[in-house]
């Protein structure tokens, strides 16, 4: 029988090993994932958006999505107020005071597109236990495969933008989210929302081109006349139009947030007022995976722990013990 000191020593050693493992996430630290050079995405410029919702309708058609009443069921048309498993794209509105001046924080209004941001280092992909959420290594599109999905909804809970949504009303419900119309790309099409946008507020293109365009706009003087491209920025498939630059918030949302997103946003109203709270530059996925790889990298720590535990168990267990009792003769004697 061991002494109390032995017990304490081992308890402390065990505790220290666990605490040490948990507190040193630098062993196999993983940085934010890097953007693919051929990544595609969207640039949404709230100052160009007129709130026509052509993109909401086009998204429904392109993805063959049903009517989605989250207003009253006897409404004349459906008016989704937020994305759901059956609505992948909505235009929301910010209103203040009299709500008469476009893109003004005081007494003004502004639109804001809500759809998947296609993170460079997505939490949903890191969370998914069955590779139903995947990120394309070339285009960077975050796609979903319902045939792989087990419906655990870890992605729904993990997404910091609240994008993957689950259909709770169906016995065979699945996740719904924007996949940047990847199913239309083989026919030379691109994201339907950008294709139909009459003002170029939603612009499709290579992420590198979109970033250059966004930086160009941010460098413009308010009121300065400039060309606004439409449709696909990288191919220039639609004619651009001439207009005046707005007074932008000097920030490209999605440039750095959580390691960057492939859908980026420009706005004249502060981002935290249009639904985007500030986020750190380090992705949550890299934090989680660094922790997991530190604890389980090469299974070194679990195997070492198993070795130690098996050693002690072997040493402390009499040969005839079956772990559930020692004395098969049924001797009636207490230890004290």
């Amino acid at each position, binding site marked *: 029988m061991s002494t109390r000191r032995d017990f304490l020593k081992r308890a402390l050693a065990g505790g220290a090993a666990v*605490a040490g493992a948990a507190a040193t996430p630098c062993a196999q630290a993983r940085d934010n994932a890097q953007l693919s050079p051929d990544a595609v995405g969207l640039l949404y410029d709230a100052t160009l958006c007129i709130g026509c919702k052509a993109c909401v309708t086009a998204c429904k058609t392109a993805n063959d999505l049903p009517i989605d009443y989250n207003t009253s069921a006897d409404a004349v048309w459906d008016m989704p107020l937020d994305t759901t498993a059956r609505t992948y794209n909505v235009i929301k509105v910010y209103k203040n005071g009299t709500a008469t001046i476009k893109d003004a924080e005081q007494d003004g209004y502004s639109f804001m597109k809500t759809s998947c941001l296609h993170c460079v280092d997505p939490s949903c992909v890191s969370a998914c236990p069955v590779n139903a959420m995947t990120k394309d290594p070339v285009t960077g599109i975050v796609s979903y495969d319902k045939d*792989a999905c087990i419906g655990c909804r870890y992605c729904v809970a993990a997404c910091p933008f609240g994008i993957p949504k689950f259909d*709770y009303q169906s*016995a065979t419900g699945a996740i719904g989210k924007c996949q940047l119309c990847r199913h239309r790309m083989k026919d030379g099409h691109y994201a339907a929302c950008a294709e139909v946008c009459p003002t170029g507020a939603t612009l499709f293109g290579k992420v590198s081109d979109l970033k250059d365009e966004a930086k160009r706009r941010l460098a413009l003087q308010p009121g300065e006349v400039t060309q606004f491209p439409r449709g696909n920025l990288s191919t220039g498939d639609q004619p651009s139009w001439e207009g005046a630059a707005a007074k932008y918030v000097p920030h490209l949302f999605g440039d750095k947030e959580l390691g960057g997103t492939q859908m980026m946003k420009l706005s004249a109203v502060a981002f935290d007022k249009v639904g985007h709270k500030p986020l750190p530059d380090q992705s949550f996925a890299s934090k989680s995976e660094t922790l997991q790889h530190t604890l389980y990298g090469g299974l070194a720590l679990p195997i070492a722990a198993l070795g130690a535990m098996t050693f002690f168990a072997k040493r402390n*267990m009499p040969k005839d013990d079956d*772990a559930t009792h020692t004395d098969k003769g049924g001797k009636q004697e*207490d230890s004290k």
Partner: protein
Amino acid sequence: MSKHLHAAPTPVGGRLLNPATFACGVLILTAFAVLALRFWGGLGAVTNLNDGYPWGIWVVADVVIGSAFACGGFSVAMLVYIFNRGEYHPMVRPALLASLFGYTLAGAGVIFDLGRYWNFWHILWPGYASPNSVMFEVAACISLYILVMWLEFSPTFFEKFGWTNAQRKVGRAMFFLVGLGTVLPMMHQSSLGSMLVVFGTQIHPLWQSMALPAIFLISAITIGYAVVLFESCLAAAAYRRQIELHLLTPLAKVMLGMLSVYLAVRFGDLIVRGALGYAFEATTQAFMFWLETIAFALPFWLLGSPAKRANPANLFTGGVVLMLAGILLRVNSYLVGYQTGDGWSYFPSVPEMLVTFGMFAIEVLGYIVITRRFPVLPREDHAPAGQAA
């Protein structure tokens, strides 16, 4: 360890149908009725789950809390075999039995919550499984641990059916099973904390931390001892057996030792991260944090002196309060501290709660049936066994 000669485990005996088992049966049937509706109409037909709170009590209570409550077997086996405290040996079988049920049900309970349950095998299937996901780690470890526990417990059945050969074979591998049975729960109980790391700033700073794996693991070990105190007191009262004070009194001291480690890690982490200030804001989260902290601290007052540790009422209350603390830590970090954006709220629906009650009823019923019919609890000569429920 050979110095400790204990009474051999014997079936308690007695009638299987009594008010307690009948109540369990009713709860179980009700849960099955609700589950039939869930499979017919989808999760939305019976639960209050929504896209802001996609995880409700079927995850947090049935799996996260249920498996922590099932840590008695792990905590006691570690004490006996790793720390060589053979005097606690008679507690291994009953504790293991409760763990077996807790984990098997936590594993089975996941199926009801999975929206696409027919694909559940993907999580362990090469080609689908994603090792980067914390949930993969939890699923793999819990599945393996359930198997290991059934093997650890199998001598009880072999003994009953007189299969001495099988009993001997499992006995020879037992040291390895015990090793696995210690490491696997360490892995997934810590991972149940790690699961929240990827939620990032959606988890309130009082609960979001890289120390979550340590916090969840140490609390689960502590709760393991609390559950043993609770079960032993309850079994003694229900079966009119002598309360095993000579074991429970020192066990309570071990529990307090582990609890001090827990509180040191929990508050050390809050101070190092500079997050303690959030505990003094006028928020629901701060209030719930203090409720949780009080529940974790209360056992020191309830069981602080040798006299108190010798009092069965204090042992029982101490165990229950610490189990409550474990519930609060898990509900707080998964639900109260989860802020997914404005406009979302969640409180479990009545049918949702009925399923959770039904799950716990299966555990209680299973425990009663097996202890009455199989050799689990130590034989007792002083008092006649199995008179009442």
